């Protein structure tokens, strides 16, 4: 609850500071860095899942004064975890994560997005940690493509001359996962946005 309060306070302060900015949805290019972490919920695997980082770029197209279409490309090395009867397997999949969807601007500084994402294998899958007979467990990492739903909250930190700095919190909910598998991830995108 404390985190929620802090987040709301932070958001209100930023919006107040930024209240002169009036960009909203506009055809724009987004380039930035992304940090992400896979949520692993297991009694067997007691290590912390590491926070990783990658590169992202995307575009946004205005549909109406409050609505926009967005597409972005993220280059990730995401972790996939699966366990069964005390055995587990943790794998890393290099991937191009492409998300395309819709964005709603509540106010010019604050928007919410919902998209469909596809993660395409972009190299070779590696085993990070295997326990017992876990090597026989197949994770979604070995699939060439897997799909997820992406939700996001985007906040504009600063705006000047059609250029802005944004921070975007994302949660990816995978729906092509296998039994007892964890692959959902959270990500924080810090990006530079240029109106085209």
């Amino acid at each position, binding site marked *: 609850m404390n985190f929620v309060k802090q987040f709301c306070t932070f958001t209100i302060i930023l919006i107040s500071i930024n209240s002169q900015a009036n960009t909203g949805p506009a055809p724009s290019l987004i380039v930035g860095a992304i940090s992400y972490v896979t949520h692993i919920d297991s009694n067997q695997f007691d290590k912390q899942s590491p926070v990783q980082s990658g590169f992202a770029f995307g*575009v946004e197209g205005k549909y109406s004064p409050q609505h926009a279409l967005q597409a972005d490309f993220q280059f990730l090395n995401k972790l996939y975890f699966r366990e069964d009867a005390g055995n587990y397997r943790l794998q890393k999949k290099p991937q*191009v994560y*492409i998300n395309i969807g819709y964005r709603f601007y509540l106010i010019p500084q604050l928007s919410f997005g919902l998209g*469909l994402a*596809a993660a*395409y*294998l*972009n190299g070779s899958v590696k085993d990070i940690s295997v326990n017992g007979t876990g090597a026989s467990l197949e994770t979604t990492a070995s699939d060439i*493509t897997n799909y997820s739903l992406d939700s996001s909250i985007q906040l504009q930190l600063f705006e000047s001359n059609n250029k802005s700095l944004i921070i975007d919190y994302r949660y990816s909910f995978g729906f092509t996962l296998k039994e007892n598998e964890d692959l959902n991830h959270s990500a924080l995108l810090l990006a530079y946005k240029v109106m085209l």
Partner: protein
Amino acid sequence: MKILIFSLLIVSLVYANTEEDKLKKTALKPLVKQRQEIKHQIDSFTTGIDQFLTGREFSNRPNRTKLTISNQFNFKEAGEVEYQPLVNVDLHLPNLEKLIQVKLSSYDVAERNEGVDKNRIEEKSSEESFGTSVNFFKEINKFKLQFRPRLEFSPVVGISYLLKFSLKQAISQRIFFEPTLSFLAQPDDGTSQYTSLNIVNYVSRKSKFTFINEWEYQNIDHTLQANNGFSISNDYNSRISFLHMLIFESNNRPTYNLDNIVLSTGYFHKLYKGIIHYSLRPYVSFAREYEFRQKFGVQFHLNLIF
């Protein structure tokens, strides 16, 4: 001998063209009438979609929606005749035209038109893959940008993407440098990059010579495929055109080497412009698989357009 037969066949087709007007008035008349009825229904349907999506009144611009039924016949020496029917719909929505072109197709357009296979005459047939795609086009200075997500329905539901940058830079009055860089992501093949550095010499208003250099790299299995060669295309008249190609195909399996040499000639005929088009492409290939021994083949495509 075989080349002579193919050549005679092409020459006879050119002369057969003079009989075209008679054909239009007789054999094709019922087909044309039926085609107009189907076309009218397609246009009404697409206009409805356009109005629903944009909430705007009907545009005065003509509807260019096209439904193409393509019949492809491939024959290769010592092989069987392969037949593949394909359906392609170019859905035109006048009110959304400035931003979006929507395409519906029964084959993977990216694989056919954006990779090295587009210049490979005897490559694998298009895998049946029903789907729908949306094309976004944007021009930034001299660069043309295309982004195309495609939803596929067979064999399982999947999404493929294409991001393409292209440029047309004049070297002289008639010679142009036309590089392309495409990023492809496909549900079955993962990600790949396609690069082409083609030089096109517009010899005359009707003829052009293209020096072809293109590569495609697949990230999953680290395979590189390349095409080097040239093509000569010539428009004989508004309905007949020719395309002659010599392509040296290479790949990096097991190491980078020449894999095939293909010499082809193509005869393209719009028998009834915008309604019935066909093409005949005889070729001879020298593949490494057959120790570079010659193999003849021919492709015949018949397109019915509504």
